[in-house]
């Protein structure tokens, strides 16, 4: 597939994501495209420049995703969304990743980010290639009731194979969401969702790096390939843009740059999002940008269900800084939530006897759960089909023992010009924790 330079530029995060090598397994023509590639139905020969450029803003980087190309027709910015079944990979490039049959827009979940500028008129075509009807609700946008996308209330449901068009003027700016409001429980649980970013007319709030991520939770039972929409609370995959650590893109920032992280939450849980190394300000939500006098410094911001939050900070210290949900089990992959704690359970001798009747049984957890990643990484503990280990990720100093909602903000004096990952941070001498004793009875003198 050939891309024009303009097409390459307009995608925002396209270049980074494509270089990260993220791909979706081939299932159907529409879903066999690279994760960030245009959908065949987005056949715009002359797409617009990114809306962010028009607004004088930095392009939005949708982690592991892209922004949707648009064109200008009849006084409106036109988008074309295609709702369809796709095959989705929760950890592209990771061995033993979990793959599912999901529903998405234009080949991905979440769908591509829509970017436009406050005051513009948008015309959004929605082609329904799902087996059931659907609709789209424009979460947070101020628009005519007939465009609000609530199936049965403000519109008739959009039947399979039909294309309907939403058209309205963008009266407010900020970080918004889009998702179905028809069979919502199932359609959102299976991946139909996306972010809608409306840039302000002016550029007074300009940032240098503008990242977008949509929080979600999934229940993919071990050995299955479809998310279970009936699960209410006991989810087992926690994702940024439908990807788990360590497959989530890092956020690459040059030291001194002003950074915005736009977070939307379409999961069923609230998430205390915690940034290491910096104080940030919550500058807005799905109600729009907050008055400056309401901003206050934070290192953790709760993003409740159905909310968006914009976190802004100046990345003035180099390093690899963790950014994650502070609910510890949200930074794990699939794990049992109803198992007895093996900590302190002495069973090595018993395990020998158990193996006589149950070959392959291993005692574990007596000294803690960290050994789990050692076992799974070494591959001598086979897990269930289509199920990722609970803990993953290898850092410069060992295993990260993380999964789910975890990524890294990499701040450097210089970044590779090709947008590639700069690798792990090299700590200057004397700035890193060090060992002083290996004596368990160590006492300060």
């Amino acid at each position, binding site marked *: 597939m050939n891309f024009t330079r303009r097409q390459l530029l307009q995608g925002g995060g396209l270049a980074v994501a494509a270089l990260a090598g993220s791909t979706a397994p081939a299932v159907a023509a529409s879903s066999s495209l690279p994760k960030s590639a245009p959908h065949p139905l987005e056949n715009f020969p002359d797409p617009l420049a990114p809306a962010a450029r028009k607004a004088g803003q930095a392009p939005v980087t949708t982690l592991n995703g892209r922004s949707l190309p648009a064109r200008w027709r009849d006084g409106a910015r036109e988008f074309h969304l295609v709702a369809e079944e796709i095959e989705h990979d929760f950890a592209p490039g990771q061995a033993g990743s979990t793959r599912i049959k999901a529903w998405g827009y234009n080949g991905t979940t979440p769908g591509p980010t829509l970017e436009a500028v406050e005051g513009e008129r948008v015309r959004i075509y929605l082609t329904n290639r799902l087996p059931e009807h659907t609709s789209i609700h424009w979460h947070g946008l101020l628009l005519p009731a007939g465009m609000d996308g609530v199936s049965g209330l403000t519109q008739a449901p959009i039947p399979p194979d039909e294309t309907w068009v939403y058209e309205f003027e963008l009266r407010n700016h900020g970080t918004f969401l889009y998702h179905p409001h028809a069979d919502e429980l199932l359609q959102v649980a299976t991946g139909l969702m996306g972010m809608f970013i409306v840039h302000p007319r002016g550029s007074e709030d300009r940032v240098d790096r503008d990242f977008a991520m949509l929080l979600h939770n999934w229940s993919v039972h071990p050995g299955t390939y479809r998310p279970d929409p009936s699960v209410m609370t006991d989810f087992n995959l926690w994702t940024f843009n439908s990807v788990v650590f360590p497959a989530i893109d890092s956020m690459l920032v040059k030291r001194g740059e002003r950074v915005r992280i736009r977070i939307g939450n379409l999961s069923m849980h609230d998430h205390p999002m915690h940034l290491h190394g910096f104080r940030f300000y919550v500058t807005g939500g799905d109600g729009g940008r907050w008055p400056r006098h309401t901003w206050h410094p934070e290192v953790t911001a709760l993003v409740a269900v159905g909310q968006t939050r914009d976190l802004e900070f100046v990345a003035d210290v180099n390093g690899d800084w963790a950014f994650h949900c502070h609910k510890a089990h949200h930074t794990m992959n699939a*794990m049992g939530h109803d*198992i007895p704690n*093996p900590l302190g*359970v*002495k069973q090595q001798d018993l395990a020998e006897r158990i193996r006589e009747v*149950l070959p392959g*049984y291993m005692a574990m957890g007596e000294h803690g759960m960290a050994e789990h990643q050692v076992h799974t990484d070494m591959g001598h503990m086979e897990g269930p089909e289509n199920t990722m280990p609970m803990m993953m990720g290898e850092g410069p100093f060992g295993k990260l023992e993380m999964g789910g909602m975890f990524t890294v903000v990499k701040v450097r004096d210089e970044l590779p010009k090709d947008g590639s990952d700069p690798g792990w941070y090299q700590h200057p001498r004397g700035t890193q924790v060090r060992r002083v004793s290996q004596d368990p009875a160590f006492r300060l003198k």
Partner: protein
Amino acid sequence: MKIFDVLTRARTALALAGLMALSGCAVSVPREAEVRTQLPATARWAASVWGAAIPGQGTGDEPSDGSGVGSGVGSGAAPAEASVGASVGTSPPRVLTAEGAVRLAFGENPRARLLRAEFLKEMAAVDAAAAAGGVSWSWSRLRPEAGLAQLALALSVPLEDWLTLPARRRQAYWDRAAAAQRAGWETLQLEHEVRIAWATAVGMAQRSAELATAAEVAGLEAELSSRYHDAGSLSRADWHAHELQSGEALSAAAEASVAAAIARATLATLLGLPSTDPRLLLPEQLPALPQIPSADTERTAALAAQALRQRLDLRAARSGVTARLLEAARVHRWSKLPALQLGVESEREPDGERRRGPALEGEWSPVRVAEAGLATATVNAAQAQAELLAVQVVNEVTLRTQAYRRAVELANLQSERLVPLQEAKLSESLKRYNYMLEGPFAPLEERRHGAAMAARASEWQLAAWVAFQELQQALGDAP
């Protein structure tokens, strides 16, 4: 007396029947050739039971090993184990097969001797009834007050006994045949009992071993739960719940062990051995099941027809009917005539005169007519009994065929479908435990369930084996 003697008598009876056939008979009875076709089954039974060669049979239809099964059930693959010999006598202990158990039973079990003794007793009674007519004599000496004593000597033979000798011998032939067939049937029952007892002993031991494994796993679960409790990660209630499970599993294992011991003792008794006899070294599991019989009704009808031809109890009943028919014909024929005694008498009168001459004595009683009626009723009863038995045989074959098919299906379902599924479930559970998706008790529980399922599979395999034997019984076949 050996079985050879029994057969020799049967052959003698055949010869007699041939003679009688030459003499003509008003009653329609099976011909000798028909009778001869009946003997191979008995001979085959004897050969299989005592391992004896049947001299002079030469019928050419002695089946090879397992052909009896083959003609009855599917392709007839007899149980593979049947070809394995058993240890008998002083040879080192080897695994006891079903065939070996049968041989032991017929060598050691007093019941086998009892069967033979009763058979010979019955044959003796038949022989006695078919003996040639007797000779009666009388002698008297009457002393008068004066003169010589009056002497009288009479020698006579009951004419009826002699005149009916061919008919009685023909009847005896059929009575002998019936007795041999009954004895054969009883012996086959004993063999089937032994085979069922052998399968039960093996199957129950197999089940017991599986449940012992389940109990062992449950014990490990309980011990692991105590470790979790000691570490503060499991409540006392949960710990005790695991111990309760362990106790229940132990109880089930103990019950299975007792049942296995009873089955072993039953087998030992049938074999005429103490249950500690080293020859009672049983295999660890039952051999593969024989092939399942076809389900179509045509096949079932063929099996029923086969059973009607070869069931020894039915043959015995039919032979009995023939014997009773012959008896009734004879009784009827003679009931209208007086009982005649033909003889010679010699007398000396007191005056010294001697007289000598033939004597004919007749006696007629209404009782003889009644005896004819009784004989007719006996024939009718025997015929009705034989017909009833034939109906029972057909129904029994149908029922046993269906029962065997179902038992095999269930046994195969258990062993080929459910047990592997449970093993897959266990494997999955272990993988989930590896990834900390489940606790350590889950795979142990699945292992315990797997052992219990294997025990159930043993039960069904045993049920199929028993059903197989019962089908063989219904067919009247020697396995």
